[in-house]
């Protein structure tokens, strides 16, 4: 029976979904090791303590709240020192962080400070005697590695979304703590937070790309593509070389051998026949949807899902359906 530590990530005074996943994972680990406690660390500007109760819902027995005006934004050096000191003092079997931008920044520093090894970006884990055995996707997701982490505490970063947070409601105790090192003395500080929304997503970053080809017939019809991108909310608009050559879209939007090479979660090819030049730039996308009037078009060879038909006719229907699905989920 051993206690487990979880780092509950927050941003702008609100808990992030990954915080619940980390707590929930710690709960599972604690239960597997015979029912130890889960201690979640919650860090932020004064007032953050009010969120502690939410962590109890996913299985935290105690929430260590570190409130400090200098911790409104992430301050990795202060956080690492504070978490490391607490993990050391608490004698935890394991410490779970998120493999988020913040967690990936923080966990290795904690591990190095504690002088222990860590497993990064894991999708599954189980206890095996003295060791923690984890799964970690490597080689651009083409290989799944099984790794054995020995030593205590075992530091792990958990891939966001890999394990859904499961409710395990309890009343969490709250313990207040002070940062171990002065946030003001950190050599690296966050000067500015830019919260997304208004900024147009770049095709290199967007998880979803909706891309149009000559099948759209005119520059004006790209409005339909933009509408679909807006319905997704996290989509960028791309285009084929033929389209950028014709000046329907700027050259920076071109996806393909001579343009950008992308690999989003979802790639929607609209009115694109699938010339080699284009396929070379997008075939590594995780899921590919193609809509084209020619059922022999090469694009259907790389697509996971295809609809044969007139893209101009189908687009408004698809946009409405995506909008609806997004609203629900």
């Amino acid at each position, binding site marked *: 029976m051993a206690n487990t530590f979880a780092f509950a990530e927050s941003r702008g005074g609100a808990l992030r979904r990954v915080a619940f996943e980390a707590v929930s994972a710690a709960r599972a680990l604690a239960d597997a090791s015979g029912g130890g406690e889960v201690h979640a660390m919650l860090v932020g500007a004064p007032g953050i303590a009010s969120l502690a109760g939410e962590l109890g819902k996913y299985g935290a027995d105690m929430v260590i709240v570190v409130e400090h005006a200098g911790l409104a934004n992430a301050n990795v050096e202060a956080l690492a020192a504070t978490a490391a000191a607490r993990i050391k003092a608490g004698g935890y079997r394991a410490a779970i962080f998120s493999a988020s931008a913040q967690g990936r920044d923080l966990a290795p520093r904690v591990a190095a400070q504690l002088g222990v090894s860590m497993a990064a970006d894991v999708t599954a884990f189980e206890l095996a005697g003295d060791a923690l055995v984890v799964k970690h996707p490597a*080689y651009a997701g083409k290989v799944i590695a099984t790794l054995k982490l020995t030593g205590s505490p075992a530091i792990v970063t958990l891939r966001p979304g890999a394990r859904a947070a499961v409710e395990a409601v309890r009343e969490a105790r709250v313990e207040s703590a002070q940062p171990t090192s002065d946030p003001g003395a950190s050599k690296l500080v966050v000067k500015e937070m830019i919260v997304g929304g208004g900024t147009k997503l770049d095709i290199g970053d967007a998880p979803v790309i909706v891309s149009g080809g000559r099948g759209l017939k005119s520059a004006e019809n790209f409005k339909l593509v933009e509408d679909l991108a807006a319905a997704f909310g996290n989509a960028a608009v791309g285009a084929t070389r033929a389209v950028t050559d014709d000046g329907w879209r700027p050259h920076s939007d071109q996806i393909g051998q001579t343009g950008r090479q992308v690999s989003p979660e979802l790639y929607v090819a609209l009115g694109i026949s699938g010339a080699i030049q284009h396929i070379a730039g997008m075939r590594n996308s995780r899921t590919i949807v193609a809509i084209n009037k020619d059922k022999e078009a090469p694009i259907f060879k790389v697509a996971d899902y295809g609809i044969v038909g007139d893209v101009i*006719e189908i687009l408004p229907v698809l946009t409405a359906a995506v909008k609806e699905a997004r609203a629900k989920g």
Partner: protein
Amino acid sequence: MKIAVCIKRVPDMETRFKIAASGTAVDEAGLKYDMSDFDGYAVETALQLNEKQGPGETVVISLGPDVVQEQLRKALSMGADRAVQLKAERVPTDGLVIARALAAELKGGAYDLIFFGRQAVDSANATVGPMVAELLGLPCATAVSTLDIANGRGTARRDLEGAAEIVEFALPAVVTIDEGMPRARYPSLKGIMAAKKKPLEVKPAQLGEERLTLEKMELPPERAAGRIVGEGPGAVAELVRLLHTEAKVL
């Protein structure tokens, strides 16, 4: 400025990997190697900084067997001044072991900046850079997509999920380089010729015991073959259902 760039030799990710008979490695037959993409950006960033900001030195370091000299030579052909190989039979699985070996080499080097790629594209851990920073007591900006260095201070943008932060830090510092930074330049033949004459020092890596070990490697389940969902606007509902329940992208 004196800049160190730590690079890793990795196989080409375009490959359709097979698992070796040992079950703990990918089959190396027919693999093509290069430096990890992000490490290439890191070398490029270092070279551009020193080109713009006057005299400096760019030192590339790689830990591993003698084959890593290929990637070190490539960095030299891009314009790095000298290279160090921390010789080891293989690259350890445990990031802390690597970080300690690198930190030992970097410690007395009086570097203004130490660059890493955001992560190695093969092992994909992103742990060594910040660990080295911690071991050396340096600030570390991870996964930066822009970087400005002026008057002994650095400013960088880090892209978070759905947001970004601008961080400021004092030099010396560790920075890990993400997408958005300049792509590695294509070495000219002139550079390749010049690289042959640049110093490449080989030292034994100081490796400790590994506490993260590789048990098994396996291929993920095969992706299902693509299919035509239907024809015309009537097929949209089914498509959206599949994207939601099967592909889980909606």
